[in-house]
């Protein structure tokens, strides 16, 4: 037995007081789970309300947030200092949330189609979507649910499961569009927390969107983007000469060559935020990294995949694969491009690395520190799409003081900014509040969509990690220039 102190969120609706964290010290045995600690707390204080049932990860009753992250209390090991809170859903009392109305949005099977079990292949595809234990975790982290009437991730999972089943008679694709199919920002938060590891965005939402596309139900604004990509190979209008056409093919570093990357710039950095991309190139060159710019690169296809418009995808992929094949390392800077190259291209003959990964791996010359407090906005496609979280933070800390802010989708992904602007605005405004609450002077991020979108939703400067680093280098250079010459000898 060992004593652990955990803090548990207590909330009594009758008290009129907000929830508060109460510390409890309990004895637990080796291997105890959060649930067992809660049992012990309940023995100390029988007023604690919490749910559980199977105790073995099979019923989905016990989902709570442990240290901010949703999970099953019966499966997560408990540790001293854990903070246990209810899921981010309307709280009934203590750790109990109002789950039933959310679960009620999960569509029911409508019999009447074929009677017999489908063939083996269909059954295997269905099984992949059947593991949901309706724990509510995914719903509780879904940004779209908070600002729209979106039925939620697992409701979409169920619609895809029903769509694939020849025994079901509902029009699931149509229902999905009515239930908010196009509200999903593809932030991957749901996939990250699902205890059954169901990857709803890729396995359900994108597939439903693809089916909607086949049936002519794609949103007009999404269809416009697809038409543009088809015509120009780019997902945004050519209002300026794309950066990759303007710069040299090979940009040598300023000092000795320590490494080499082929830079997949992406549509937005090439044509909407070229200054940011140029900052990144400067930082790389300063750090001994040769930057090669393949001229044949086209849109990575992400805007098409996320919105289910797959007709032209193979062509884009082939073009990019050919353009990038000669290089051992392809660097992306756009979180969306990076995630797409890493996950939607199958096996590639080269390694795809994000800008932050490249710098972390090769190491950087220390910049000067700026008297600046910044916060960092995690781009969804970097944090969850590529698992990159520590690298940009370490880079930022080289230059400025970093105050943390909860990672939440800004609303610009998944075609939502174009297709559902009101939702994107509402999510952007949430970021405004979160940013203001940190007290930071600037917001640093690492994705062009976030950079662009958050700029419209905060009064602070929003900049890429590269731009911040470059400012640090500039300051360093200025300091060196103004410093008195060191006596030599």
């Amino acid at each position: 037995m060992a004593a652990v102190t955990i803090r548990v969120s207590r909330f009594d609706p009758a008290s009129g007081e907000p929830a508060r964290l109460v510390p409890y010290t309990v004895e637990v045995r080796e291997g105890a789970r959060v649930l067992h600690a809660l049992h012990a707390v309940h023995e100390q204080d029988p007023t604690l309300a919490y749910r559980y049932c199977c105790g073995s990860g099979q019923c989905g009753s016990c989902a709570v947030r442990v240290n901010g992250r949703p999970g099953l209390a019966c499966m997560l090991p408990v540790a001293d200092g854990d903070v246990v809170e209810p899921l981010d859903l309307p709280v009934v009392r203590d750790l109990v949330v109002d789950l039933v109305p959310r679960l009620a949005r999960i569509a029911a099977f409508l019999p009447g189609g074929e009677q017999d079990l489908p063939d083996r292949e269909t059954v295997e595809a269905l099984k992949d979507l059947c593991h949901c234990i309706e724990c509510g975790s995914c719903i509780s982290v879904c940004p779209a649910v908070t600002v729209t009437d979106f039925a939620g991730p697992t409701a979409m999972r169920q619609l895809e499961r029903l769509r694939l089943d020849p025994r079901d008679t509902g029009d699931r694709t149509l229902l999905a569009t009515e239930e908010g199919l196009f509200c999903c920002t593809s932030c991957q938060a749901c996939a990250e927390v699902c205890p059954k590891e169901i990857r709803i965005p890729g396995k359900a939402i994108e597939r439903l969107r693809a089916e909607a596309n086949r049936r002519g139900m794609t949103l007009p604004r999404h269809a416009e983007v697809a038409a543009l990509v088809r015509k120009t190979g780019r997902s945004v209008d050519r209002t300026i000469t794309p950066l990759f056409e303007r710069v040299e093919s090979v940009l040598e570093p300023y000092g000795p060559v320590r490494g080499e990357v082929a830079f997949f710039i992406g549509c937005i950095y090439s044509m909407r935020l070229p200054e940011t991309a140029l900052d990144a190139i400067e930082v790389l060159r300063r750090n001994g990294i040769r930057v090669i710019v393949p001229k044949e690169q086209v849109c990575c296809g992400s805007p098409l995949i996320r919105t289910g418009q797959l007709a032209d995808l193979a062509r884009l992929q082939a073009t990019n694969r050919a353009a990038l094949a000669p290089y051992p390392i392809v660097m992306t800077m756009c979180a969306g491009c990076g995630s797409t190259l890493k996950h939607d291209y199958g096996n590639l003959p080269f390694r795809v690395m994000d800008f932050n990964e490249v710098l972390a791996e090769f190491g950087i010359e220390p910049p000067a520190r700026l008297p600046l407090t910044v916060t960092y906005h995690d781009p969804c496609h970097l944090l969850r799409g590529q698992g990159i979280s520590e690298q940009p933070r370490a880079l930022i800390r080289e230059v400025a003081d970093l105050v943390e802010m909860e990672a939440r989708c800004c609303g610009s992904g998944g075609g939502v900014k174009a297709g559902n602007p009101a939702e994107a605005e509402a999510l952007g405004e949430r970021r405004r509040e979160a940013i203001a609450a940190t007290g930071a002077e600037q917001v640093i991020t690492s994705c062009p969509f976030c950079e662009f979108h958050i700029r419209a939703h905060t009064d602070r400067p929003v900049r890429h990690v590269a731009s911040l680093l470059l400012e640090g280098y500039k300051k360093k250079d200025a300091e060196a220039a103004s410093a008195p010459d060191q006596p030599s000898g």
Partner: protein
Amino acid sequence: MVENGATAAHVLVIGSGGAGVRAAIEAAEHGSVVLLSKTIAGKGGCTPMAEGGYNAVLREGDDPALHAADTLKGGAYLNDPALVDALVTEAPDRMRELLAWGAVFDVGSEEGVAQRPFGGQQRPRTCYAGDRTGHEMMVTLMDRLAATDVEVVHECAAVELLLEAGRCKGAAALDSEGRLGVYLADGVVLATGGGTRVYDISTNSSSGTGDGYALGYRAGAEVIDMEMVQFHPTGAIQPYDARGRLVTEAVRGEGGRLLNRLGERFMSRYDPERMELSTRDVVARAIATEVLEGRGTERGGVWLDVTHLSPGEIERRLPIMLEQFLAFGVDIRTEPMEVAPTAHHIMGGLRITPDCATTLPGLYAAGECSGGVHGANRLGGNALAETQVFGRRAGRSAGLEPERPKGVTPAIERQLGALRLRFDDYLDGEVPPPSVVRRLRQTMWQGAGIFRDEAGLAGALAGVELLKNQRLFAATERNLLECCTAANQCLLASLICRAALLRPECRGAHMRRDADCSTPPNASRYGHTFLSLTREGIEEVA
């Protein structure tokens, strides 16, 4: 008096596992239905936890008569043949129905649902959805339920059945805020599941507290064969707080070996022919014997080893076990699992007719809270089938009850008044329920576990009676339900001990060390044990 109001419906179903939901779906064909569930409906009970499968005769070469013969043999011929007949005849239809309602079961190389061999069965007849069969059934049933007008009352537990002139008229229930509600109906279906949570080590969910046995018994219905508790041979030992967690029979099916502390493959001493694939009762007793005789592991178990299989095989065939044990820090590809028997299933329960009528008019029972289907030992895969076959039958029977006036009559008022007094006692009590339950579980494990004798059982019963008389304490109204549940567990425990004392023989899961174990079960002179408020005994065959 009744601050949560009185609700009337044609049929009241208590419990939202496989049996309860199936009953509600059926009853909805006959009139209004209210479904009471202690948990969020569909999440409670053991149905969503069932891994292995559902037995049904679906293919040429198999026959309901063979299924019946297997079930009777497995049940040591204590089963009620009419119930077995209903089970084997209707299990296939109920399976097909689940498929038509969208259930996703595995398909094999042949056409149709795949079926695997399970212990004690002459044909492969266990249908499965990976190792989450019960979950798939539950999802399917909840979908179907959503298409009916059944009113589902989540997180509201029946605490007492209400009677009027010798008829069950409904139930009193507590919601999660501790408010008392009254539910009145023409027919009431009890489908509250099992109760092996009265043992220290158990596979059951938190609702395996035997409420149904207790409610039925207190209302005057008769229970049979309560001594018949199945101990699954392989429950996980670690971590301690999750002890008893089921380690599926499939592990042995795939070639898992049982080894004692000395590394001996000890099943050769108990069943050299079938070895690890012997029946559950034999394997459970073998493991218990090894431990009792000092050949167990330090933590009181034995090793279940699959490391002779290739890692790939383990990953393919036992993915969930691999995942579960990895979550608890054991890699079964390289280390053995530590296992010991765990209380799994209660074969006994409310005495029912094939139409699920209990001995109390107006009250029907289905699923694990009923008795007689499995006799003295349940075959793997028969319980899920039971929930569907008898759930439907119970729902239909309750639905066919004629309409009667439903009101809070003086007789019901009196019962509610008594309940209020009990609640006041709890609010005023002394002993927190968890401490009573903890002692109860240990008492039962020691005195009414795998091996039994008269002295041990009598001692356990005395211990249980002491605990029953503790003045349970509810800190707030929201804790009243915990007290009711603890009281139900104490009552269930006493029923198990009393029944076990009534049966002076070894039969199936009931192993009396002080009794004759040589008579073959089909030659036994004993029938069901029975207990009710007015009589108790054991049936003897003339």
